[in-house]
């Protein structure tokens, strides 16, 4: 795979987002809403919020990311861009990787902006090694995005694609969600072994990135 193609795809997606800011804005606002809603619905005390904060952050990101992922490929449908992409000599994997990395960066931006708000709203103070979160968030986000971009491409030519994406993505994402939530909770409460879950997340990422790259060509050219 020549790196040139991959960089071109990545640059195109970043530029599109930079000009419209559709995905980041909608994700930010959506995730913020979820955080506020959960906080109001459960009204957690400080000890309780340590237990549930990791889960809420992950679920909020997950829902927000799905709303943006639906647009990731729908964008390419206008003016038959997707058909043009299928005809280019660039390997399908480089297109996939560029798209994935772009979306990964969008979601990471959302998480970084949201994290301080989150700490404030839930009155958080990590009892474990808070620096490990720097590992957990990118690994978990990558697991979500790599599968999300893949399944968004898979569902793009189906009926009800907006509905179908979460239906097929969430069951596959469950182990990674569990790893993300358990490690975040272990870090926040200082109990349990966060490193074990981080290793599991890493393994999940490696396996699914490999399979996605291998099978993306089949999906792209499915007729």
């Amino acid at each position, binding site marked *: 795979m020549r790196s040139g193609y991959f960089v071109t795809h990545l640059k195109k997606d970043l530029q599109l987002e930079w000009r419209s800011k559709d995905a980041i804005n909608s994700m930010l606002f959506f995730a913020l809403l979820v955080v506020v809603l959960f906080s109001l619905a459960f009204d957690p005390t400080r000890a309780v919020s340590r237990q549930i904060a990791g889960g809420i952050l992950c679920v909020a990101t997950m829902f927000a990311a799905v709303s943006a992922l639906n647009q990731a490929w729908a964008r390419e449908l206008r003016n038959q861009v997707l058909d043009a992409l299928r005809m280019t000599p660039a390997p399908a994997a480089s297109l996939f990787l560029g798209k994935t990395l772009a979306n990964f960066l969008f979601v990471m931006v959302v998480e970084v902006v949201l994290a301080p708000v989150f700490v404030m709203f839930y009155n958080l103070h990590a009892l474990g090694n808070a620096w490990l979160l720097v590992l957990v968030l990118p690994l978990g986000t990558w697991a979500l995005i790599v599968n999300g971009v893949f399944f968004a491409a898979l569902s793009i030519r189906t009926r009800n694609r907006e509905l179908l994406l979460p239906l097929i993505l969430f*069951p596959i994402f*469950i*182990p990674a969600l*569990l790893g993300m939530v358990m490690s975040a909770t272990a870090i926040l409460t200082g109990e349990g072994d966060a490193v074990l879950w981080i290793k599991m997340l890493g393994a999940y990422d490696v396996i699914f990135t490999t399979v996605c790259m291998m099978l993306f060509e*089949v999906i792209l050219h499915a007729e």
Partner: protein
Amino acid sequence: MKLWRWLWLLVTLGVLAEGFRVALFVVPSDSAQGDVQRIFYYHIPSWAGMGLFFAINLGCSLVYLAVRNRNQALAMKADSLAVASAEMGVVFCFIGLVTGSLWGRAVWGIWWTWDARLTSTLVLWLIYVAYLLLRRFAAGPQMRTLAAVMAIFGYLDVPLVYMSTRWWRTQHPAPVFGGAPGSGIDPSMMPAVWWNLAGWLMWGIFVASLRYVSEYRAQNAEQAEALKSLEFAPGPTQMAGGR
């Protein structure tokens, strides 16, 4: 062919009846749990059936992906068998969950717990329901390719779910067969296991074969229809309506 199917059905019903008799009236009841344990004879065959049919589904999906551009007839057969086995696997998985839940209510006092095996099988069930949903939402030959890819993802996810939930928590009894040394059940109970295992697998194969034939015919009819409309279509605009 029809005669064989009727014979198969008759033998299956006979084996199931014998399995029912042996499981309920012949083998001794469990020394610790009493008669509740007898649901185990229906619990185990469903997991065996689930494992068998999901494995068939994976195999057929791989075959479909490998030959879809070269051997259309074989690919369609593989795809039909993949649907039939996925549906049968989902049914077996559901029966396994329900029988397990009934047993749990009697022995643990709760219907459900978020334990490693329970969670992973529930996730497995969800994945294959999603697979069947995908098949409904998409149309035409591209759907078959997409579904085959999804089946590979689903199967790949299972060990990960299992490992992750195992680290998480576990309450389910250790595997009865092939677990720790000294596991397994009393030899006097084995006939009930064998009869029911054979009976339910035969039943599953019977239903799946019916589904396979109907799916295969539906696909053939669909293809014939598509070919016909291709011949008469005035322009390419009408073809897009099929999606």
